[in-house]
């Protein structure tokens, strides 16, 4: 059986084990014993022990199968290849695999043995895998079945298992962080070997162009990240100036004023704004909004470049409206009605109730929503690249063109530079620095939010 059918088989077994365990517990209880837990807990316990080990095994298997078969295959290759370089081996293996899959390739007869072996091996491993997975599941069934007695603390066991699963899930988030660090640290290190770290952190000029041509190794160019962070700040600020008021007011309007039918329609409609591909926003910003901003600026006698932070920020603001509006709407909606009643009963207007009672009560959630929106703004690339240009100006003027850290990361990464050029490596260093910066900001934000949390009820 292949993976998907094995998974399905395990799921079926799992369901069966659940019923089995539950019924067994019912029997025990019917025969007059007082159960420690509910029959469903016994069922769940059986299901967990039946399903989890095989699924874990499958996961491990899928990770290890490749390397193991490889090793086994290498032993079957002609001696000349086996003693050859690793590249020769890996080529031969690729060839064997393709031959085994039926590709029409001219192949030396010595390889045929390996091909044959691979085909056998594949068949056998499939069989072995199916056998082991099913056996493990059945062992789970049998062992748990034997353990089911009236005094088995099934609920505690199930809960402990579930708790561990929950824990593991939140662990993934932490692992992701390490994964990110792992994937940028090495290159950043290399980068800081070529560019002074202080120059990078405090330099005010970003221009990875002049210094680093061709095979030149040193660097005298300017890798000052300050303009990038300033640009990020400027554009995020503009975006938030749109998204926070509009999003928050929308949320308030929808949950406090609008008729339910309006809310039911408008909320999902606004949510669509978050899913429009950023390329679309990019074109919209560059071709519709930017000229508008420029003309308006010109009308005011200002000198506005056709790529402006304002245009990009505005459109980005539109994109992240739903982050603020929908998430805030949910938390606002969750504020107990009795608090509103208390306020109305004192003769407060709706807006006063919202501002003084509902919003403070919903504050942690709203801050979370806003933080999420800010995060999204910081991470956005396409709109800025298309509408605000790529010039790293250190300016606070929203009519100037600026660029952001993220945009630079992307352009540097997909650019044409050789792998070890500081231009490419700078992307990793920027990523690392952005990561650390936002980490600090988040730390501060958490402290601030903690201070203002209001518990209701």
């Amino acid at each position, binding site marked *: 059986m292949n993976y998907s059918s094995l998974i399905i088989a395990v799921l079926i077994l799992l369901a069966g084990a659940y019923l089995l365990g539950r019924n067994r517990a019912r029997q025990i209880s019917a025969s007059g014993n007082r159960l420690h837990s509910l029959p469903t807990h016994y069922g769940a316990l059986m299901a967990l022990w039946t399903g989890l080990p095989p699924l874990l095994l499958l996961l491990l298997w899928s990770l290890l199968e490749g390397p193991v078969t490889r090793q086994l295959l290498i032993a079957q290759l002609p001696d000349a290849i086996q003693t050859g370089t690793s590249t020769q081996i890996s080529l031969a293996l690729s060839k064997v695999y393709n031959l085994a899959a039926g590709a029409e390739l001219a192949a030396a007869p010595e390889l045929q043995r390996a091909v044959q072996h691979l085909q056998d091996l594949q068949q056998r491993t499939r069989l072995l895998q199916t056998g082991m997975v099913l056996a493990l599941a059945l062992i789970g069934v049998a062992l748990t079945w034997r353990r089911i007695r009236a005094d088995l603390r099934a609920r505690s066991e199930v809960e402990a298992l579930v708790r561990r699963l929950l824990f593991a899930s939140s662990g993934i988030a932490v692992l992701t962080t390490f994964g990110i660090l792992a994937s940028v640290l090495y290159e950043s290190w290399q980068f800081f070997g070529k560019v002074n770290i202080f120059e990078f952190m405090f330099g005010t000029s970003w221009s990875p162009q002049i210094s680093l041509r061709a095979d030149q190794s040193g660097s005298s160019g300017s890798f000052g990240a300050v303009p990038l962070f300033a640009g990020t700040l400027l554009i995020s600020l503009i975006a938030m100036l749109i998204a926070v008021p509009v999003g928050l007011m929308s949320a308030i309007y929808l949950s406090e004023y609008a008729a339910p039918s309006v809310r039911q329609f408008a909320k999902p409609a606004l949510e669509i704004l978050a899913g429009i591909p950023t390329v679309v926003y990019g074109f919209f910003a560059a071709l519709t909004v930017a000229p508008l901003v420029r003309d308006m600026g010109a009308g005011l006698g200002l000198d506005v470049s056709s790529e402006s932070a304002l245009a990009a920020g505005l459109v980005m603001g539109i994109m992240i409206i739903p982050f603020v509006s929908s998430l805030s709407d949910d938390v606002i909606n969750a504020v107990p009605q009795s*608090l509103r*009643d208390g*306020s109305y*009963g004192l*003769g407060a207007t709706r807006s006063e109730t919202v501002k003084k*009672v509902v919003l*403070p009560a919903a504050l942690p959630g709203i801050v979370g929503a806003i933080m999420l929106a800010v995060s999204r703004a910081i991470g956005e690339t396409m709109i800025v690249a298309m509408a605000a240009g790529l010039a790293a100006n250190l300016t606070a003027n929203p009519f100037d063109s600026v660029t952001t850290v993220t945009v630079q990361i992307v352009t540097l990464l997909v650019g044409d530079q050789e792998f070890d050029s500081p231009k490419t490596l700078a992307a990793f260093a920027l990523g690392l620095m952005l990561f650390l910066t936002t980490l600090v900001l988040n730390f501060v934000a958490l402290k601030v939010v903690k201070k203002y949390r*209001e*518990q209701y009820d």
Partner: protein
Amino acid sequence: MNIIDNHKTRGAAFCDNPKLKARNVGVFYGEKQAIFDVSLDIGANEVIALIGPSGCGKSTFLRCLNRMNDTIDICNVTGEILLDGDNIYDPKVDVVPLRARVGMVFQKPNPFPKSIYDNIAYGPRIHGLATSRVELDEIVEKSLQRAGLWNEVKDRLHAPGTGLSGGQQQRLCIARTIAVDPEVILMDEPCSALDPIATAKIEELIDELRENYTIAIVTHSMQQAARVSQRTAYFHLGQLIEVNPTDQVFTTPDHELTEAYITGRFG
């Protein structure tokens, strides 16, 4: 003890100097009717007690009087309620000043998740009743004192109101309501969580308030009704069965349902 269809309220539902007049009020929760054709006057400077078995519609009726029912989506009110002669259900009426004039203490205490001080100061602040911090402090202190809570909380005015005991929360809500100095005060079982001493304090307050205000109070305690009210209205299954001067209700009720309820208590 069956209810009569098309029942007419017995006794003196109307009075000479009404502050609030309810006329043929009906209330529906969705399909379900909770109040049937209630007509009742509440006189100026009078305390009226609303009594009746649990679930008979006392709270519902009370909440009609300052349009608190507007906040329940499925709730619908028919009939007329006049405050000083103006129909409060007129679409032109602004509920905000209305509710400032007709204050309410809810059945379940619902302090804001703010400090005790801010809970009280909230109303005066939004209505602009105090021009200075000092004045506001005064209002807060006075209100808490009148509700008999001052001594217990005076050294933790900035602790959250939700961290108070049940009875303290209830008094906080009473203090909060009187802080905005309404003309009519609707109280839904204001003493349910209070000990006798605190109850006495609140009853005193009610007596004192009566001189200038109009008060409607829902209570389950006959004694309390007898002590504080001038008139008593008896509700049953959404109908207003009888309204009469309090002593008459408790001694010689007009209606057998009222009598059954009263005596069921004493008997």
